């Protein structure tokens, strides 16, 4: 029974933590920039308020526009049930592996880009075009980081990767792992629309990517998209944290282990979120056509990670 609980427990915890994570990054960024900033729990209020408001839908929009928030939210929640967050998903019912997680997130992005085009607004089209460019260029890095991890674990199954790293910590500190971690972190910044690839707090059309796509959304639809995006950030950070530093994850559904799992997850996510906040205060946004250089650099890192795994085995 406990093995199936992961399917329910993890998405709920992830849903609960995700807005707080975004709020924490915003709050820390404000502090680093000598502003007071909104409290970290501000996103919870925003989501609640958005759910109570009316939604405005463009005359030109079709059912794609109204279906997209559900697809984006749904895929993020399903992915949250697959990845190791506080528990290692050892259940035989876990529906997929790393590839499934990546392609589910791609499904969400696919629909989000279609919704951007659906309203006929030039902003939406621009955002969709840029987002698909960035996503397409991140795919090889994501896949190769997965290969680097799977090579040492012998499988793309999450629980197998985590179990292997805990069993052989020496391998986890090897150069291959470290390079793959850096590559995945760069990809996380690109996929979740953070600086230096995209700026989550801009509303200037020249620089927008993600925000331009979702510009037409309002009310409950916007709430679902915002929540889904926050969940995506959490999932990527959880992947970066727990696939490379899995210590603290719960292996059983015991209250003690779960508490440790939750606490360690919060600490790890907090550390990565703080890194993002510091990074976003320190670096400027890249021009769109400089982004491929950053992404190809991360691809090279991932390739080196794989090759070094070949060398050291």
């Amino acid at each position, binding site marked *: 029974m406990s093995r199936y609980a992961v399917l329910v427990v993890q998405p709920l915890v992830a849903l609960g933590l995700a807005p707080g994570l975004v709020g924490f990054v915003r709050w820390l960024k404000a502090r680093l920039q000598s502003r007071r900033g909104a409290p970290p729990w501000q996103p919870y209020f925003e989501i609640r308020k958005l759910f109570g408001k009316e939604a405005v839908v463009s005359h030109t929009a079709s059912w794609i526009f109204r279906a997209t928030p559900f697809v984006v939210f749904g895929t993020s929640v399903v992915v949250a049930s697959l990845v190791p967050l506080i528990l290692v998903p050892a259940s035989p019912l876990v529906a997929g592996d790393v590839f499934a997680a990546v392609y589910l997130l791609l499904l969400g992005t696919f629909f989000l880009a279609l919704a951007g*085009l659906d309203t006929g607004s030039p902003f939406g089209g621009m955002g969709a075009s840029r987002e698909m460019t960035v996503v397409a260029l991140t795919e090889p890095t994501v896949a190769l980081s997965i290969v680097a991890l799977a090579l040492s674990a012998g499988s793309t199954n999450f629980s197998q990767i985590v179990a292997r790293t805990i069993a052989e910590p020496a391998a986890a500190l090897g150069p291959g792992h470290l390079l793959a971690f850096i590559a995945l972190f760069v990809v996380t910044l690109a996929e979740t629309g953070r600086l230096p690839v995209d700026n989550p707090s801009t509303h200037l059309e020249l620089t927008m990517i993600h925000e331009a796509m979702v510009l037409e959304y309002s009310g409950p639809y916007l709430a679902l998209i915002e929540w889904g995006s926050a969940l995506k950030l959490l999932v990527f950070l959880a992947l970066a944290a727990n696939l490379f530093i899995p210590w603290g994850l719960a292996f059983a559904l015991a209250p003690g282990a779960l508490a440790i799992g939750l606490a360690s997850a919060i600490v790890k996510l907090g550390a990565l979120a703080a890194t993002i906040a510091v990074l976003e205060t320190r670096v400027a946004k890249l021009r769109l056509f400089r982004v491929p250089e950053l992404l190809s650099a991360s691809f090279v890192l991932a390739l080196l990670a794989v090759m070094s795994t070949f060398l050291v085995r």
Partner: protein
Amino acid sequence: MAFGTVALLVMAAGYTLGAVLSLVARSDRAARVLTAVGAVVGGAGGLAAAVSVLATRVSVDAVLPTVVSAAGGIVIRLDPLGAFFLALITAVSLPAAVYGTTYMAEYDGRCSLRVFGLMFNAFLLGMSVVPCAANIFTFVMAWELMAVSSYFLVMTESEHSETRQAGLWYAAMTHLGLVLLLPMFFLIAAGHEATAFVDLRAYGATLTAGTRTAVFLLALTAFGSKAGIVPLHVWLPRAHPAAPSHVSALMSGVMIKLGIYGLIRVLFDLLGGGPAWWGGVLLAVGSVSALLGVLYALVEHDLKRLLAYHSVENIGIILIGLGAGSLLHSVGLRALAVIGWTGALFHTLNHACFKGLLFLGAGSVKQQTHTGNMEELGGLITRMPQTALYFLVGSAAIAALPPLNGFASEWLVFQSLLAGAHISRPEIAAGFPIAVGMLALTSGLAAACFVKAFGISFLAMPRSDHAAQARECHWSMRAMMLVLAGGCVVLGLAAPWVARGMSRIIDGVPGLSAGEPIPPSSSLWLTVPNSSAQVSPLLLAVLLGAITVAVLGAIHAGGLRVRRADTWGCGRISQTPRMEYTASAFAEPLRRVFAEVYQPTQDLSINMHPESRYFIQSITYTSHVVPWFEQVFYDPVIRTARGLAAQTRRLQAGSLHLYLLYVVAALVAALACAWWFQ
């Protein structure tokens, strides 16, 4: 007589009758109906034969030794591998034939639908016989019937110069394949009397390494020109848009797969597999084809030409699976090799399904709007809602999005590439991660490309009057698209079950067999031997559905208020289609990123006011992407051929005396030869 034999006879009779009856039909309308009736009867027979072979795993034999007995007669043997390809052919040709009945209505009176019916059924007959053929004569005859009849189908609208050019390219490339096919068979059967595949299998084992290499290279070029691997793919983006859409669906969805069939049959069945470098070549050719195919699709704004380039991409993915399986097999990892081959066969089936669907969808759009240019489309989702839905399913499937079928087969191909880690020789193993990177980039770009294809063509506002006046197409056409869209969904959800069937087929081919019993797998999970990787598309779909329903219910319970308003536009007064993003603009960032590959030519002319250069009267911008390797490979060949042709033309002086002289010279030469050889 056995059931399978009867079904094959029904197939041959159906296609033949369809060809003959439509030729003598009284009206264009009758010709269209008779074409479809013949094709449906023939297709049903073929499907029944294929299914019975797949279900019972007993091959069907039929021999007609008296027909052209000097060449060995007609020998038919439908084994499970052939039955798989026959099932694939008929599964797409049945909906395509019915679709064509109403689709071809716009050609009534414009071109001869009687000849079209003859060629259409001949094409289906040729394609269906190829996987059944069991000697060289039958195989080559069916192959040539398929090639020649499809040439006439491409030339349906021969009044357009583009179509004639496409036909020329197609005829040249397809006959290049035939020219190489004959020496390939000759090399295998050299010095022997019998030409049945059973005998060739025995000869294959005795060939020297050099001969095997030559056969491999000839097979790769001959079948590759049919399958459309880079750089032999040049005819695809020309011929597919020129042909009527249901013919494109058959050519792209099915005919090019027979190139894959030929490769498997010759390399892995007749020759029984080869050294590691064969797999390496297949893997490299596949990776390059996949990546270049999708890159050129991205900058293509004609819906059907875009789909044609995606065929190149998908053939590449199939070859990656074949190559990975072949490499793993050659180093002894036989159970893992089956994963790669299963992925390749599964992707072959999936591509037939979604590419057939997408071409039929593009055909409906073209029928209604009379254009395939995406820059003139838009807003079709409100005018053709069902076509739009089916096209969306096809787009999501080809972009490998879960839980549809493209995801399942790409997952298997990815897993076979990951299995490369088990290879102990680093120089072989190092190729696998690079292929992973290229395949991942390909699938990311494919997603971007289909956001463009669907988003620009179907969403937002119509960009031209043609698109604004579009109506939903005829119900029979929609029903056929529904069948194929349903196929995409079912093949995705039932992927573990289908994959198990594929691995059984693979087990029956000598060069592909794992040599050990296939480990039992559950019907819910796609799994990999010796690994805990697993995925269940069905479970993913159920989870997604449950969450969506729950959230939808919660939001509607809370009272969702929706207000319709204009799209926000920075205070502009009204929204026009000119404000929308175009297909060119959508692809522009990626075109700039890959400018080194595209090498686009740009032409910008700014017309300034004569008084001041700060007042601009008009700006004209044109940009073209001409594939550079077409120029590198084909321009010299075409130039040489033209030069030779010009030299040969001197013979044609138009003078009767000269021709008489030729006759006398030829006679003397013949007599001299006869005397010499005596």
